[in-house]
């Protein structure tokens, strides 16, 4: 198949779950057992979408095999010179659906090889275009577009594969919903538990809608569309967290998730507005479009507008510069006077743009537009902070565990919360170094904070939730220090092992009917498959390996993150406190990760049963639940492997190779920020052979040792029992309380935001009740009195009176006339005769000649 089929393959894969959603919405409750109450339809749709995604992957590999010819080492260097690539627009599709996306990979490739500098970053290959144009309002074009590169395809395969596994798993996990459910967590006023009808169709309906939204988010070709799908996944998350709507805690958690996400989205909207005001476009990639005259024009997308500098370095786009320097523009216009033509004004402004951009001729003045670009980046990142549960908006994710466990696995660990990381990765070219530093710091704080909280949590799902927050922090940190592939590789590997871990925890919860790890223990004998697969997940998330030989997937991604953080630190020459902090927090976080994951595993599966009653009733889950576990365990083990150890051309056939293909513009060169005095290393710096001794070797050993140390500590405390956890707790009572209360974040937000909001709300309600309601009530009373008077005057007297009088008149005439009807036949005859006579007489006397004509 041609690459032009890609938009249609992926578009269809996106729409299949939507079709399933609408089908279940309309007919779901009426589907019987034959369709598993709608579950089979949703599962079929997502599996079909998965098949389409993998077909798309094959099509992609057939045309753009990863790593074709470019050698990372050749692209190294801190030099940022080089010619600007004239043909960096890889491909473009026309705006009409049905047109072929023009494959321009060859063109782009040749441009790269012609580049004399050698370290030219080859632009990523992508297909961008519009399925449908919703409308064009002046400069603003709203369209349903697509942007397909290897990252899109990776995400499609990832989302559909995990979602398929989870759909199958849900068939078993949500089996109870097929008949009447007794909710043990809802106690009614009479002390009994709530009994309700099961709603399997509703669950799968939302799952389908979620899959559609997530795939649409990944496929989206412009940031406006991303925003729409962003909100769609948000609302799906809201529905699914609140699936057990009768539980008060589920209601609150759903509201919390939704509201906290809105805060982030507010920032995202600001970012969108800045981008649109400055750039006049929402599109990511360059799109070739025929204008009204029929000539084809290349419409630049956000990425190439921002990365227009030499060697795709960051260059503030003209639009942002002009927007920022509007006072200067006004001065020029005034200076030229009213007689100047539009072209003259335009020329005068265009001549100045470069000076404004660079901060005056001497570079000392204000650099117009740069602040706006930073603002746009921070704004977009705000949205990602909300969605990916980063500090300070991380509070919603642990509460979101109120939803059913498959939802936690799919939505709140593997895919939706990764959408924030995905968007940071997608938007990477737009982020200035200052924004990257913010991203890195936020990620660093998040990863450390969440990891520490996970140590004290006893709810098995909450441990995993904080682990998710922490791992998302890792990804943000990686992206923030310039590790684009590292961050997104961790996204992929994390998606697999975290969905695996969640499904395992779901399997345990399904067996023992509690989330509390203090009630579990010793379950490995009862649930061997679950215990084993969860062990794989724990090893994967801890990043266990035989260094430099082979390891679980987490080893590869976490190592890359640490290496990038380390090279960032080395670039600063160990001088920068911040850079060192980033690295050591990440390394320390790795140890804590290993510790709390194995604490979880030991508490659940090892030792003696703490609750014999629950232990007795535990059993291994049915096959429909364990098979997805095994599948995910396989992927969690090997998804990051590179065939032939990175030595052969075929070794590019891996997630890393694929991700390298869509490496954003400009990330292979070092990015310097004069304002911060820091330089961001390019990602290949750490992997250069000469850096092996300085970076790769120590970092790998450090990661391995910290992981083993964490596991060892967990083993000592929770498995062997050499140290009593309770004693440690007593020893560090203050710290324990601090961690147990999640760093007091909920309480802090309660005091800072919730209570003031309630106070304002109460005050507003009082004003409403006393003043506004009083005014309205008075007006209403006055109006109704007026109406009563008017009613008497006009309606009763005039309208009703006249009608009644007319009616009684007609009635009287009728009564009078009825006396004619005597009932006597002879009288009638007489009337007829007299009448005829009268007519005759009348005609004889009065029908004069004038009448007769």
């Amino acid at each position, binding site marked *: 198949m041609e690459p032009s089929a890609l938009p249609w393959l992926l578009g269809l894969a996106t729409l299949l779950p939507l079709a399933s959603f609408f089908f279940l919405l309309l007919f779901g409750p009426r589907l019987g057992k034959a369709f598993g109450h709608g579950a089979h339809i949703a599962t079929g749709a997502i599996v079909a979408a998965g098949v389409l995604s993998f077909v798309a992957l094959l099509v992609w590999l057939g045309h753009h095999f990863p790593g074709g010819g470019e050698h990372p080492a050749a692209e190294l260097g801190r030099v940022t010179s080089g010619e600007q690539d004239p043909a960096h627009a890889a491909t473009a599709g026309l705006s009409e659906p049905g047109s072929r996306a023009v494959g321009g990979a060859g063109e782009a490739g040749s441009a790269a090889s012609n580049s004399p500098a050698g370290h030219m970053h080859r632009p990523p290959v992508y297909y961008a275009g519009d399925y449908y144009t919703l409308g064009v309002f002046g400069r603003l074009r709203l369209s349903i577009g697509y942007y397909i590169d290897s990252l899109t395809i990776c995400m499609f395969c990832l989302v559909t594969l995990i979602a398929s596994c989870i759909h199958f798993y849900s068939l078993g996990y949500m089996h109870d919903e097929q008949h009447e459910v007794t909710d043990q967590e809802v106690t009614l006023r009479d002390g009994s538990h709530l009994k309700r009808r099961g709603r399997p169709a509703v669950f799968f309906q939302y799952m389908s809608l979620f899959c559609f939204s997530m795939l649409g988010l990944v496929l989206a070709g412009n940031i406006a569309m991303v925003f729409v799908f962003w909100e769609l996944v948000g609302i799906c998350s809201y529905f699914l967290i609140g699936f057990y709507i009768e539980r008060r805690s589920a209601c609150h958690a759903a509201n919390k998730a939704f509201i906290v996400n809105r805060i982030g989205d507010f920032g995202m909207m600001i970012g969108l507005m800045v981008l649109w005001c400055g750039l006049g476009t929402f599109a990511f990639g360059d799109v070739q479009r025929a204008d009204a005259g029929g000539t084809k024009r290349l419409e630049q997308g956000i990425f190439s507008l921002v990365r227009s500098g030499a060697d795709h370095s960051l260059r503030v786009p003209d639009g942002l510069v002009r927007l920022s320097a509007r006072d200067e523009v006004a001065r020029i216009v005034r200076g030229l006077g009213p007689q100047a033509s539009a072209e003259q004004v335009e020329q005068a402004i265009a001549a100045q743009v470069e000076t404004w951009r660079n901060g005056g001729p001497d570079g000392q003045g204000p650099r117009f537009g740069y602040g706006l670009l930073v603002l746009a980046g921070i704004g977009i990142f705000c949205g990602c902070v909300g969605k990916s549960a980063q500090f300070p908006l991380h509070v919603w994710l642990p509460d979101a565990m109120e939803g059913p466990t498959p939802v936690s696995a799919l939505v709140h660990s593997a895919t939706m919360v990764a959408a924030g990381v995905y968007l940071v990765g997608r938007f990477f070219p737009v982020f200035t170094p200052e924004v990257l530093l913010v991203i890195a710091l936020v990620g660093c704080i998040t990863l450390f904070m969440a990891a520490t909280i996970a140590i004290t949590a006893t709810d098995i799902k909450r441990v995993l939730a904080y682990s998710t927050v922490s791992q998302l922090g890792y990804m943000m940190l990686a992206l923030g220090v310039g590790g684009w592939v590292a961050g997104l590789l961790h996204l992929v590997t994390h998606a697999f092992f975290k969905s695996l871990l969640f499904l395992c925890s779901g399997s345990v919860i399904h067996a023992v009917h509690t989330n509390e790890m203090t009630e579990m223990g010793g379950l490995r004998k009862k649930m061997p498959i679950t215990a084993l697969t969860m062990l794989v997940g724990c090893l994967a998330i801890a990043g266990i390996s035989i260094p430099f030989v082979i390891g679980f997937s987490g080893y590869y991604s976490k190592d890359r993150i640490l290496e990038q953080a380390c090279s960032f630190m080395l670039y600063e020459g160990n001088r920068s406190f911040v850079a060192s902090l980033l690295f050591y927090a990440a390394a320390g976080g790795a140890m804590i990760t290993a510790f709390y994951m194995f604490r979880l595993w030991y508490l659940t599966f090892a030792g003696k049963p703490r609750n014999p009653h629950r232990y007795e009733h535990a059993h291994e889950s049915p096959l429909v639940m364990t098979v997805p576990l095994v599948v995910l365990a396989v992927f969690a083990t090997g998804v990051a492997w590179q065939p032939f150890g990175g030595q052969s051309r075929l070794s590019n056939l891996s997630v890393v190779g694929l991700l390298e293909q869509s490496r954003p513009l400009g990330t292979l060169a070092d990015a310097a920020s004069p304002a911060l005095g820091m330089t961001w290393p390019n990602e290949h710096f750490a992997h250069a052979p000469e850096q092996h001794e300085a970076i790769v070797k120590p970092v790998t050993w450090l990661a391995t040792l910290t992981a083993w140390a964490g596991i060892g500590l967990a083993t000592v405390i929770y498995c062997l029992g050499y140290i009593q956890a309770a004693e440690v707790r007593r020893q560090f009572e203050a710290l324990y309380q601090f961690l147990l209360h999640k760093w007091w974040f909920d309480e802090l937000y309660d005091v800072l935001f919730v209570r003031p909001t309630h106070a304002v709300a109460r005050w507003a309600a009082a004003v409403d009740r006393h003043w506004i309601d009083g005014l309205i009530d008075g007006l209403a009373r006055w109006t109704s009195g007026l109406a009563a008077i008017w009613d008497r005057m006009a309606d009763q007297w005039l309208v009703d009176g006249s009608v009644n009088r007319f009616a009684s008149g007609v009635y009287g005439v009728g009564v009078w006339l009825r*006396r*004619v*009807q005597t009932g*006597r*036949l*002879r009288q009638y*005859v*007489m009337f007829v*005769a007299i009448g005829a006579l009268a007519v005759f007489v009348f005609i004889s006397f009065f029908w004069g000649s004038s009448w007769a004509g």
Partner: protein
Amino acid sequence: MTPCFGQITVAHYLAVGAVLFVAGIACMMTKRNALGVLMGVELVLNGANVNFVAFGSDYLRPQSLGLDGHLMALFVIVLAAAEAAVALAIVLNFYNSRASIDVDRADHLKG
């Protein structure tokens, strides 16, 4: 020849028809017996018939109605027969319910 006994003209017929008509009307107005009323009706119809026949005769007027007059008369006869049949049926039913054919007692349709 006196006008009365001379040539018979249309006017003579009209006079007879008028007498019949008035007699019929008087009969309808005065008779309490339903059959008497019916007879009055027949008289009225036949009074009219005499007029039609007179106007239709070629012997009495040069520009007569011709066959139209005769046809009209025949039509009225048929009509009278039908009417008599219907009226007699009504009278019979009335008699069955009241054991009387006094039209003055048939005042159910009184307003």
